[in-house]
């Protein structure tokens, strides 16, 4: 299963990190094996007054061995450039232990916040061609109600049908459920999500398990 991610076009990638003309420049490290590109890292040397830092902007590897080789090369380049520290802002990624083994430690310095602007547009984008299922009248506080048919494997935004159950929540709870930061049961017990037919709670649980986006990738160049 994929992840929620920003679609980075070629020109946007170039704007964030490095233009195609500069692809052979010194601030990109490539691992090529048998003529095939297996991984790359784009980094930048930053100066904060008298402090020199190496920021890893983008890192892509098709296996742990390639990642380890990339990390070694970045450290080597950083040491040669007289850098004081190396940093990398990472999304949820596998092979975290590769960084631990090299002496990296981690901490939290930023948080990603989201605001719901149009739940109808969002659910319309997630709609599938399903014909059978319970109809849920979904009300997010501050927005018009939305009728959603919840099938076994998909959902569909519909019009003019009678609803089987009504669900009421607020936009923040909706977002936390949408991005998999909490569970329906937890929010139901907290009273942040209400349902008029308790026996249809499983439909609501299924609805959120279908739309939930637990894994994510936002390119560091977009962290404005």
């Amino acid at each position: 299963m994929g992840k929620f991610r920003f679609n980075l076009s070629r020109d946007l990638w170039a704007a964030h990190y490095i233009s195609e003309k500069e692809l052979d420049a010194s601030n990109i490290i490539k691992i090529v094996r048998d003529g095939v590109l297996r991984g790359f890292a784009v980094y930048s040397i930053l100066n904060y007054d008298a402090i020199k830092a190496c920021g890893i902007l983008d890192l892509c590897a098709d296996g742990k061995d390639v990642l380890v080789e990339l990390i070694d090369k970045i450290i080597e380049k950083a040491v040669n450039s007289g850098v004081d520290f190396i940093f990398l802002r990472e999304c949820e990624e596998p092979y975290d232990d590769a960084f631990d083994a090299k002496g990296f430690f981690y901490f939290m310095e930023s948080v990603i916040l989201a605001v719901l602007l149009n739940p109808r547009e969002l659910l319309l984008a997630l709609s599938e061609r399903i014909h059978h299922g319970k109809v849920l009248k979904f009300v997010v506080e501050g927005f018009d109600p939305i009728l959603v048919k919840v099938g076994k494997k998909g959902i569909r935004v519909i019009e003019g049908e009678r609803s089987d159950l009504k669900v009421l929540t607020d936009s923040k709870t909706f977002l936390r459920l949408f991005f998999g930061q909490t569970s329906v049961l937890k929010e139901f017990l907290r009273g942040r999500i209400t349902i008029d037919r308790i026996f249809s709670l499983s439909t609501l649980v299924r609805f959120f398990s279908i739309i939930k986006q637990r894994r994510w990738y936002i390119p560091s160049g977009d962290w404005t």
Partner: protein
Amino acid sequence: MKFSDTKRKIRNLRPGEEEEHLEMLNLCFDPWGSVEKWKKLYVQPNFDASKNVVIVEENGEWAGGGTAWFREALTKTSKKIKVYLAGDLYVHPFHRRKGIYSTAMRSLNDLARKRGAAIGFAFPSIYRTPSIALPKYGFARVFHPTTRILVLNPEKFLQYLIHQAQEAYLPRKFEGLRLKLVVYFNLTGRGHKALRTFQVKKGKLCESASAVQDTKKFDLTIDADIDILLGISACFYLKQKALFPKLLLAFLRRRLKVRFSLNFLRSILGLCKID
């Protein structure tokens, strides 16, 4: 002048105002960045500064603003949705505490909604005020990214952290606090110990010139490994419940030692102010 007499206007950045916009950002963020940084963010594919940059005017004066960057996001099933990124929200120092930030933020959300965005995103530092302010405008915490660090020069890294900490928001109850910090770095093959002393003045952490050795002169003395120190400060700012187990575990592993005065304890409990 009463607020009711003021005339507030929202408009877009006009062609030719780019340089003035950069000056405003540098004035308000003190500093924001260079022309190169401005170009990187404001001369992007499919980005039109005259449509995406919102300016708030108060009685004809440029009082604040903000910027919206639009992106296409793909869901786990590769469905496309339009999203926007809110950033560079600023208020001119002469116009603070008048609700300019609120006007700019709401205008950005309205602009994004009209342009078809389903979700908006913001990426504030946990140590700055926007991470506290944005939830008032409907923002919810959805992801907690981590930063990986490899320290090569501990003294310089600490200097960088102190610089960052000096810009952080500190609750009023810490005013006057005298802090002694002993930080341990576990570098590959060698260890390093660094000592710094501070005092909180006007809500900011100020480094004291001399490292006084007498522990009794400090309200709070912290001895900790660097990763423990950063982990605990993140939990404190995020108001995470994980703070207490983290503290306890660090104590038990002898990776954290804390000494505090009775005065400090009283101020934490809200019984008195640190003088």
